[in-house]
C-alpha cells in the first residue's frame, strides 16, 4: 500500500482554501470545474525524494493474496516437499559459477528489483522485469544462476513484505524449481538444435513457458491447499494473463546467451541497463500516479468540505433571514394589526353612524388582513429555518409541521424513539424531507391519515411517511417536474449527497409511501 506522506500536495489545499472565500468559486468547485494542479513543488532534495519513492512505492503483478496462513497438513506437506526438492536439486546441480561477475550483477539486480518493487495503483499491472532476469541468469549460468536468482528474489520480497519464513520457504522452492525447469528446457532444446540461434530462440521461448507453468501451477496448488474452498478456475484465469509476458521474456532471454557469449559479463550487464531503466521509469510513473491519487483524494476531501461549508452557509443565511424577519417585519405586522383593530374598535364605540361604517369596514378588514399576513409570514419563517428544530429537537419540529395537516382534519401519527440522538445535519435533513413530503401531502394528497415513523436500523436513520391519499403516477411526476416543481428531486439529491437514499412508492388511488434512509454518522 502506497503511503508516502512526503508526496502530499499542499498547493491544492492552499488553493482550495483561497477559493473558499469566494461564493462563486465554491460553486465552481462543487460543480467540479476547478482543475487539479499538476506537478507538486517539494521541499526535500530530489535524491531523497527519489529514494523515499523507491523505498515506499511498489508495483507488482496482480497475485491472489495469500492472507494469513492456515497451516493445514496438506499445505505444510506440499511446501515441505517442494522446499526439500528445491534444496536437493540445488545441491545436486549447482556448481561453482563460471562467471562470478555476471552472477553477482544479475543476483544483485534481481534482489534490488524484488526489494524495491513498484506497484501501479489505479491500474493492475501484470508486468514485472524480474522474470526476465530470472530467465537470463538461468539460461546463461545454469543451475547456479537459477538458484541465485531464486534466493535473491526470495530475500528481496521477504525484506519488503515481511511475509514470514513459511512463505519464504515456498517462494524459494517455487522460484528455484521454476528457474531450474527453465534452464533444463532451454538446455535440451538448444542442444537438440545444436546451439543454433533458432534453437536458442525456441529454447528461450520454451524456457519461458516452462518457468511459467511450474511457477503458476505451484502457486495455484498452494492457494488451493491453504484455502480449500477457493475456486481454482479464477486463479488460473488470472494467471493466464501473465503468459504472454513469460512468452515474450522467454523469446528475449536468448539475447542474454548471445550477449554473454559475445562480451561476457559486460554483455550480460549491458542488457540489464534497459531493464533497470524501465524499472526506474515505472518507479517515477507510479510515484506520479500516487501523487496524483493523493492530490485527487485531498481535492475530493476539500471539495466535500467546501460543499459542507456551502450547505452550512446556506443554513446560516436561512437562520439570519428568519431571525431578521421575525425581529422586524413580523413584529411590525403584529403591532399594526393591533393598532388597526384598536382604531376600528374605538371608531365603533365613538361614532356608530352609518356614514362611518364603510371606513370601519376597511379598518376591520385591514386589521384582519394584517393579522393573516403575519400568520403567513410566520409559516414561511418556520419553513425557512424552523426554530423548533434547533431549540427543541426533531420530535417537536415534526409535530409542528404535522399540525397543519391536523388543522385541516387529517389524522396524524408520529413515532420517534425518545432516546434517538442525531447529528444536527442529519436531523435537519430528515426534517427538510419530512417538510417537503408533508407539504405535498397537504397540497395534493387529500389524505385522511398520515403517519410519520422514524427509527434507527443498523447505523441508519429510517424515516417512513405513509398517507392514504390519492397517490400519483410516474406521468404525474413528470408533468409536475416539467411545470418547474423540483422539490422531490431536490430532496432525493440531498439524501444521496450524504450517502443515503430516498424511495417513493405510489400509485393512483393507493396512497403514497416515502422512505428515507440516511447514515447516522
Amino acid at each position, binding site marked *: 500500500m502506497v503511503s508516502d506522506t512526503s508526496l502530499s500536495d499542499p498547493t491544492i489545499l492552499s488553493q482550495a482554501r483561497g477559493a473558499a472565500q469566494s461564493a462563486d468559486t465554491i460553486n465552481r468547485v462543487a460543480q467540479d470545474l476547478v482543475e487539479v494542479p499538476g506537478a507538486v513543488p517539494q521541499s526535500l532534495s530530489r535524491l531523497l525524494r527519489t529514494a523515499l519513492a523507491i523505498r515506499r512505492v511498489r508495483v507488482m503483478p496482480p497475485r491472489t493474496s495469500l492472507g494469513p496462513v492456515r497451516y493445514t497438513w496438506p499445505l505444510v506437506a506440499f511446501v515441505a516437499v517442494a522446499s526439500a526438492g528445491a534444496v536437493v536439486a540445488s545441491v545436486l546441480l549447482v556448481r561453482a559459477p563460471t562467471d562470478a561477475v555476471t552472477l553477482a550483477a544479475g543476483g544483485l539486480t534481481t534482489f534490488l528489483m524484488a526489494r524495491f518493487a513498484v506497484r501501479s495503483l489505479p491500474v493492475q499491472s501484470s508486468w514485472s522485469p524480474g522474470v526476465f532476469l530470472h530467465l537470463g541468469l538461468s539460461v546463461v549460468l545454469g543451475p547456479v544462476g537459477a538458484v541465485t536468482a531464486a534466493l535473491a528474489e526470495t530475500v528481496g520480497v521477504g525484506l519488503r513484505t515481511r511475509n514470514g519464513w513459511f512463505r519464504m520457504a515456498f517462494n524459494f522452492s517455487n522460484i528455484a524449481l521454476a528457474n531450474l525447469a527453465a534452464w533444463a528446457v532451454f538446455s535440451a532444446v538448444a542442444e537438440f538444435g545444436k546451439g543454433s540461434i533458432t534453437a536458442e530462440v525456441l529454447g528461450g521461448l520454451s524456457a519461458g513457458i516452462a518457468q511459467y507453468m511450474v511457477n503458476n501451477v505451484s502457486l495455484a496448488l498452494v492457494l488451493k491447499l491453504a484455502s480449500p474452498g477457493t475456486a481454482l478456475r479464477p486463479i488460473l484465469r488470472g494467471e493466464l494473463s501473465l503468459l504472454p509476458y513469460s512468452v515474450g521474456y522467454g523469446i528475449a532471454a536468448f539475447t542474454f546467451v548471445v550477449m554473454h557469449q559475445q562480451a561476457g559479463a559486460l554483455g550480460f550487464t549491458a542488457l540489464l541497463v534497459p531493464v533497470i531503466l524501465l524499472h526506474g521509469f515505472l518507479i517515477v510513473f507510479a510515484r506520479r500516479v500516487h501523487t496524483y491519487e493523493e492530490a485527487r483524494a485531498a481535492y475530493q476531501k476539500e471539495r466535500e468540505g467546501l460543499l459542507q461549508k456551502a450547505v452550512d452557509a446556506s443554513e446560516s443565511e436561512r437562520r439570519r433571514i428568519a431571525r431578521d424577519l421575525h425581529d422586524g417585519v413580523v413584529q411590525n405586522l*403584529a*403591532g399594526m394589526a*393591533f393598532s388597526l*383593530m384598536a382604531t376600528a374598535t374605538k371608531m365603533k364605540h365613538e361614532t356608530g353612524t352609518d356614514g362611518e361604517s364603510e371606513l370601519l369596514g376597511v379598518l376591520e378588514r385591514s386589521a384582519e388582513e394584517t*393579522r393573516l399576513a403575519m400568520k403567513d409570514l*410566520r409559516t414561511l419563517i418556520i419553513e425557512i429555518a424552523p426554530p423548533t428544530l434547533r431549540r*427543541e429537537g426533531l420530535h417537536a419540529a415534526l409535530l409542528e409541521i404535522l399540525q397543519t395537516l391536523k388543522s385541516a382534519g387529517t389524522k396524524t401519527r408520529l413515532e420517534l424513539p425518545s432516546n434517538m440522538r442525531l447529528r444536527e445535519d442529519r436531523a435537519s435533513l430528515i426534517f427538510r424531507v419530512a417538510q417537503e413530503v408533508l407539504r405535498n401531502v397537504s397540497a395534493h394528497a387529500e389524505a385522511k391519515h398520515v403517519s410519520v415513523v422514524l427509527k434507527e436500523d443498523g447505523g441508519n436513520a429510517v424515516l417512513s411517511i405513509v398517507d392514504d391519499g390519492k397517490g400519483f403516477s410516474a406521468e404525474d411526476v413528470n408533468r409536475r417536474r416539467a411545470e418547474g416543481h423540483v422539490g422531490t428531486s431536490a430532496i432525493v439529491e440531498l439524501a444521496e449527497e450524504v450517502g443515503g437514499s430516498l424511495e417513493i412508492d405510489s400509485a393512483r388511488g393507493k396512497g403514497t409511501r416515502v422512505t428515507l434512509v440516511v447514515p447516522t454518522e
Partner: protein
Amino acid sequence: MTEARAKILVVDDHPVVRKGLSTFLSNEPDLEVVGTAASGEEAIAMVAETEPDLVLMDLSMPGMGGIEATRRLVETHPSIRVVMLTSFGGHERMVEALKSGAVGYVVKDTVPAEMLRALRSVIQGGVEAHAEDD
C-alpha cells in the same frame, strides 16, 4: 358605580407591538394598560411601581427573557398573573413558560377576540387559559 378595570402591564421589546397592544387593550372598557416595558428588567421595576393585575410578557426578549422575568416576578409577587406572548407556538416552549409560573400563553397572530377572551379568563382567576392560532 363602575367596576374597577383590570390593570395590565404590557412587556415587549418591540415598540410597535407595545403601542399596538396598549391601544388595543385600552379600548376595552374593563381593561386598563397601566404601563409598558421593553425588557424583563424593566418589567420587574414597573410591576413594583404599577402593581398590575396581569402582565402580558413577550417570551423572547434580549437580556433577561420572558421566562426568567416571569420566574422572578412570580417569586416576588405570588399573586401576579403572567400571560406569555409569542410569535411562534411550540409545545415545549409553552410547557417551559407554564413551568416558569405563567398562567397563560398567547400567540401574537391570534384572533383578537380570542386573545381578549383568554386575558379576561385569566384576570377572573379562572383556570389556565391559552390562545392558539386558528
